[in-house]
């Protein structure tokens, strides 16, 4: 590693740079970033990881349900072919079929590898990894540990990674990718503690920055998820695809207001929890999509038997895909059948009528949920129903990548995990995210290491660095001059606009209005002012994150306007039906030569015959 200083301007706000050099730079330290860093490091190259928070705090810790992998430990009818077919059906066949195939084939080995690194999963009676039911998966498929699988995964990867000699730069945010010609050769970042600018030289860069939840008011995502990876890649010339597909998780907390949006795991429904409206009706039985009719229980009794492992029973409608469950909840609330605080009831306590020691069972299977409701809402979920409603949870769209290597259209720039796109198509199945991180994290790390080995060191464009750094410090100059708006107000305005205008149910006129709003906010964000200094200043961080948020908000809205049909997570009031032709195309967003956002529709590659046969077999 080379440490040096390049001094910039003389004044107190000068962007002085520290420099670091790696073969592979990973941006983000959630499951995908850590798995990629471990793979690259195992390939023998120098690896640096930059993350916005402290190590081990990324959103992967919030994953509750489990890791989808066709181990076949609980039901031996399961195998990669069924997992592949389930993933494609869940994604409404807009998935990148090759990614879905690789994912289904490689997930089991990745889970076993995690176990070899110390992760502990719940066990079957014969001592193997236990698997649980989840929405859209035909068989019990999620390797899990209670309802804190994400914590187990991130801690295992973190502990394995620190013993490999990977360099971690915590609380450091990348604001620009640096290019040498067409190739990405580094990144410009600032570290939070002192606000110093850092230049990272790298022969390959892996984006693993996660999602975009902060573009909405109600979200399960933390402050970090501002679409940085998508925005950085877009600015660097990569394609974004499927940006209209934002997953609204059906069950977030709705009360009290301060916890609105916090996730309530699908595992509650996997363990037998049911959704009811204020009349006590299991409304999910009222609307079962044709694609799933043959796989869904006819009666409450059959649904219950499914959750208890009866191989001959079909799944209850509560375990239909997330997009559908979320819309059914919205419908109940809109039509006046919701709970007092604008949600519906999620009831796990009812299983008292079915099994002995139900309270202990619930606490053992869903300890974090028990704890969360007890502490934040004073509700004992073993006694009472929870109130839940949809929350912005996951971004299916993101950087278009090569299925084998995860490299984007820009040489040297890789993307993996939530900030990449392709695997999930129009809707992600629960549990397919953690497996995505492992399977493609490993592939991205290996491919990036190999790519880095074939490259000469790139040339950093110092002028581009100076310009970007100066722009980043602009908010302080404006504050000194006594003009400009505060960053928090702008962020809140954007979140409200996206929530109201580009949410679960969308319409042409509302989205046009959103685009106007975004244009206005862009204009105002360029003049935002920040008081104080560069040392750990959340106002400044929020101001810089605004740029990414606005880029992804524009991409989401533009893509949603371009898809004139309803499919998966994207539902349009003005085009409520599926359109067969649209179902064979995907939305591509890229930066035009004039700097304006361009949206095109391109045909989706169709799977080859053997895979088509698998899809048909399990339809």
């Amino acid at each position, binding site marked *: 590693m080379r440490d040096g200083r390049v001094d910039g301007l003389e004044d107190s706000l000068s962007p002085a740079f520290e420099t670091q050099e790696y073969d592979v730079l990973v941006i983000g330290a959630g499951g995908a970033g850590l798995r990629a860093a471990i793979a690259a490091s195992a390939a023998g190259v120098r690896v640096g990881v930059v993350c916005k*928070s*402290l*190590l081990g*705090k990324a*959103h992967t*810790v*919030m994953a509750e349900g489990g890791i989808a992998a066709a181990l076949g430990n609980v039901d031996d009818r399961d195998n990669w072919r069924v997992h592949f077919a389930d993933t494609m059906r869940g994604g409404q066949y807009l998935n990148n079929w090759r990614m879905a195939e690789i994912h289904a084939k490689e997930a089991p080995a990745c889970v*076993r590898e995690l176990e*070899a*690194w*110390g992760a*502990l*999963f*719940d*066990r079957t009676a*014969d*001592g*193997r*990894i236990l698997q649980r039911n989840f929405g859209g998966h035909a068989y019990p498929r999620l390797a899990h*540990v*209670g309802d*804190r699988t994400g*914590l187990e995964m991130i*801690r295992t990867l973190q*502990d*394995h990674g*620190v*013993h490999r000699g990977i360099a971690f730069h*915590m609380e450091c945010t990348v604001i620009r990718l640096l290019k040498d010609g067409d190739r990405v050769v580094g990144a410009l970042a600032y570290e939070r*503690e002192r606000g110093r600018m850092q230049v990272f030289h790298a022969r390959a860069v892996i984006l693993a920055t996660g999602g975009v939840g902060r573009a909405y008011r109600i979200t399960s995502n*933390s*402050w*970090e998820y501002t679409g940085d990876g998508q925005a950085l890649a877009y600015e660097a010339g990569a394609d974004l695809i499927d940006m209209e597909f934002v997953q609204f998780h059906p069950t977030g907390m709705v*009360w*009290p*207001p*301060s*916890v609105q949006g*916090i*996730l309530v795991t699908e595992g509650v429904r996997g363990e037998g929890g049911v959704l009811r409206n204020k009349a006590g009706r299991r409304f999910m039985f009222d609307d079962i999509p044709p694609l799933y009719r043959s796989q869904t229980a006819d009666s409450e009794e059959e649904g219950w038997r499914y959750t208890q492992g009866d191989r001959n029973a079909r799944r209850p409608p509560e375990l239909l895909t997330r997009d559908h469950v979320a819309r059914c909840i919205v419908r109940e609330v809109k039509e006046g059948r919701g709970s007092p605080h604008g949600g519906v009831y999620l009831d796990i306590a009812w299983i008292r009528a079915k099994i002995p020691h139900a309270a202990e069972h619930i606490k053992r299977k869903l*300890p*974090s949920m028990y*704890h*969360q409701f007890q*502490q*934040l*809402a004073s509700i004992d979920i073993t006694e009472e129903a929870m109130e839940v409603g949809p929350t912005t949870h996951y971004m299916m769209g993101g950087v278009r990548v090569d299925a084998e290597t995860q490299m984007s259209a820009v040489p040297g720039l890789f993307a993996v995990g939530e900030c990449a796109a392709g695997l999930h198509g129009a809707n992600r199945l629960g549990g397919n995210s953690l497996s995505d991180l492992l399977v493609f994290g490993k592939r991205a790390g290996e491919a990036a290491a190999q790519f880095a080995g074939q490259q000469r060191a790139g040339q950093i464009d110092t002028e581009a660095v100076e310009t970007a750094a100066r722009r980043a410090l602009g908010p302080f100059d404006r504050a000194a001059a006594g003009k400009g708006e505060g*960053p*928090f107000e702008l962020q809140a305005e954007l979140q409200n606009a996206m929530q109201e205008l580009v949410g679960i149910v969308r319409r042409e006129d509302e989205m046009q209005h959103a685009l106007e709003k975004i244009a206005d906010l862009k204009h105002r964000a360029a003049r935002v002012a*920040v*008081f*104080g*200094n560069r*040392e*750990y*200043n*959340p*106002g*400044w961080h*929020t101001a810089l994150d605004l740029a990414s948020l606005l880029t992804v908000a524009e991409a989401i809205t533009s893509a949603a306007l371009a898809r004139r049909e309803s499919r998966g997570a994207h539902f349009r009031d003005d085009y409520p039906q599926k359109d067969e032709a649209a179902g064979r195309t995907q939305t591509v967003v890229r930066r035009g030569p004039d700097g304006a956002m361009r949206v095109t529709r391109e045909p989706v590659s169709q799977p080859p015959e053997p895979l088509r046969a698998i899809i048909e077999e399990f339809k």
Partner: protein
Amino acid sequence: MSRTGTFRVWRGDATGGAFETYTTPVAEGMVVLDAVHQIQAAQANDLAVRWNCKAGRCGSCSAEINGMPALMCMTRLADLPLERPVTVEPLKAFPVVKDLVTDVSWNYEVKKQIKPFRPRPADADGQWRMAQADVDRVMEFRKCIECFLCQDVCHVLRNHRKHAEFIGPRFLVHAAALEMHPLDVEDRTDDLRRAHGIGFCNITKCCTTVCPEQIVITDNAIIPLKERVVDRAYDPLRALVRLVRRGP
């Protein structure tokens, strides 16, 4: 329940600081972190605070609230006496960076010094079989969210500043999770005694009191490890065997 609360928030950096008083509206269900965020958004944009999940799952927003180490996201205002100002200040066992943010990097260095997981060979088919009961035994330790509240409250670190000699409750829990892992075959007993300074712990159980995950740190993690150390190092019978083995 529309009213206001008064918060005394410590503002400053490594060179010093003081409490500043803010008032902010209090709504039903609010936690301390909500109040801090409201103050940050409306009155003090540059107020430094760490947070992520806001659900007690990531362990980022550790602070001292009315003098008690706690997660700001899990401390409800309804449980505090709001007729008095609520004090919010940074952890004391670590150097202050700014306002409520402390430099916890020491913890990440400590973890590197603990011998990593080393599994026994897998069964013939490449899988490991283990009983749920054996998994359950270490689950308690693996719930740890690394909020470092136990490190903050531990007098060995907080008052006696033994950071160079003692790894603290968090990493004794980590060592216990590894030592009692059903597959692990590594031996950390000598390290615990010498390098990790387990003897400094005199079982005051303050760490257990503040743990937001309700890990019974002292009884379930530290004491069994102490027993292992004592068995190995201080058992007179073993000492005799060692002496004989070494021979004249």
